[in-house]
């Protein structure tokens, strides 16, 4: 755990710094890979910027909307730079909505857009897990494995490191092989989602759960499984409705 990076008199919050590095690396990879998906990189860049700004504004608006009375007589705090006054879920929903608004205005194919965005997501996800590791969040179960780390009063699984390492695998595959030959649009994004939900389902079992269902089931794993199911259904739908299917059916 290293929540603060000290550079002389300057103290940087490590989790935010890691996320910014992930964002910049993702933007770089996105620019490099966009041409392989036959899509204009300028449109993608614009959509990403609009999405990011909308997400930040949306996160603040959503936070204020949750407790408007708290801002009574203290309106100046609406523009506070403190990130604790952000609602991440609200921001994410508004950011995604803004991105989809931009691409629908540009009349882009959603699946092709998602494919081209995958290198960016592939960079942000390891950064997210590393930022959680830096903050000491999402810590692992108590263990006696030799690679366990001392955290919060016990030796624990470094579960955010497991997740960060596993999340590099789909990123490397995307950078090396995507777009996959003879595959329908959307398959890069869906295969990436499939891999992400798969390793998350597997590895969160080593995480100390914050919320548990009755009988000890983890909510996080159930959400990952539902995500896995949706991804598989969508992937099958895309394969079925692709030209490959027609070719195959013709042979049968």
């Amino acid at each position, binding site marked *: 755990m290293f*929540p*603060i990076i*000290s550079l002389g008199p300057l*103290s940087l*919050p490590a989790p935010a710094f890691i996320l910014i590095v992930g964002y910049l690396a993702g933007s770089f990879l996105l620019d490099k890979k966009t041409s392989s998906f036959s899509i204009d990189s300028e449109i993608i860049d614009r959509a990403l910027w609009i999405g990011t700004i909308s997400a930040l504004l949306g996160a603040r608006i959503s936070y204020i909307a*949750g*407790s408007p*009375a*708290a*801002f009574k007589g*203290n309106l*100046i*705090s609406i523009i*506070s730079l*403190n990130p*604790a*006054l952000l609602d991440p879920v609200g921001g994410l929903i508004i950011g995604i909505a803004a991105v989809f608004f931009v691409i629908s205005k540009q009349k882009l194919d959603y699946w092709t857009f998602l494919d081209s965005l995958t290198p960016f997501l592939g960079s942000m996800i390891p950064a997210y897990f590393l930022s959680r590791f830096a903050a*000491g*969040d999402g*810590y692992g179960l108590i263990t006696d494995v030799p690679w366990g780390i001392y955290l*919060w*009063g*016990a030796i624990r699984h470094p579960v955010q490191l497991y997740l960060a390492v596993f999340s590099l695998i789909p990123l490397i595959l995307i950078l090396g092989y995507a777009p996959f030959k*003879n595959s329908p649009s959307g398959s890069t994004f869906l295969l990436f989602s499939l891999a992400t939900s*798969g390793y998350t*389902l*597997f590895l969160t*079992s080593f995480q100390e*759960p*914050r919320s*548990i269902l009755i*009988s*000890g*089931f*983890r909510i996080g*794993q*159930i959400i*990952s*499984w539902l995500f*896995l*199911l949706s991804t*598989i259904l969508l*992937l*099958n739908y895309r*394969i079925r409705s692709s030209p*490959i*299917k027609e070719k*195959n059916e013709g*042979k*049968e």
Partner: protein
Amino acid sequence: MKTYLYKLRIPVSVTILVAGLAWIWFSRLPVISRPSSPIEAAQVGFLAPDFTLTSLDSHDIGLENLKGKPVILNFWASWCPPCKAEMAAFQEAFQEYGGSDLQIIAINSTNQDSLTDVLRFIEEHGITFPIPLDQTGAVSRDYLIHSLPTTYFIDKNGIIKEVIIGGPIPLSLLRIQASQLLAE
């Protein structure tokens, strides 16, 4: 090869989903394995480390004595600009919640400050809430203070509900956290 993969996609999909369900089942936590008493650590979800410090007016202040009451615990120093910027909000919150169970305590990191500066700071900002003095830095170490200000929001059972590193914390944020702590 592609036809082969195409034909196999349904069994492969079903296998992945069934394996996922099986893993959820096998990796579920037995309810009896949950720790009966929480561990003390300066992190959300853990029991806030206990301390006893002497305040400027020579009173002993400790978390143990505040059991059953939610606590906002701030770490600060007089030379730290964001600490200065947020003190007015803490004072206002202290007055707003004076009639409730909520306790606002601002531990001064005296090991990296001077008593003269601390006294001047308190007078300048009109602070009336308790200011314990961490003369040795031991409490700051227990709370893993890497940066000032840092604020812990602790519920009535002594469990840390939120940690905010850095500042300044606006009054609205203190109000939201305070109402969440008091509602529990």
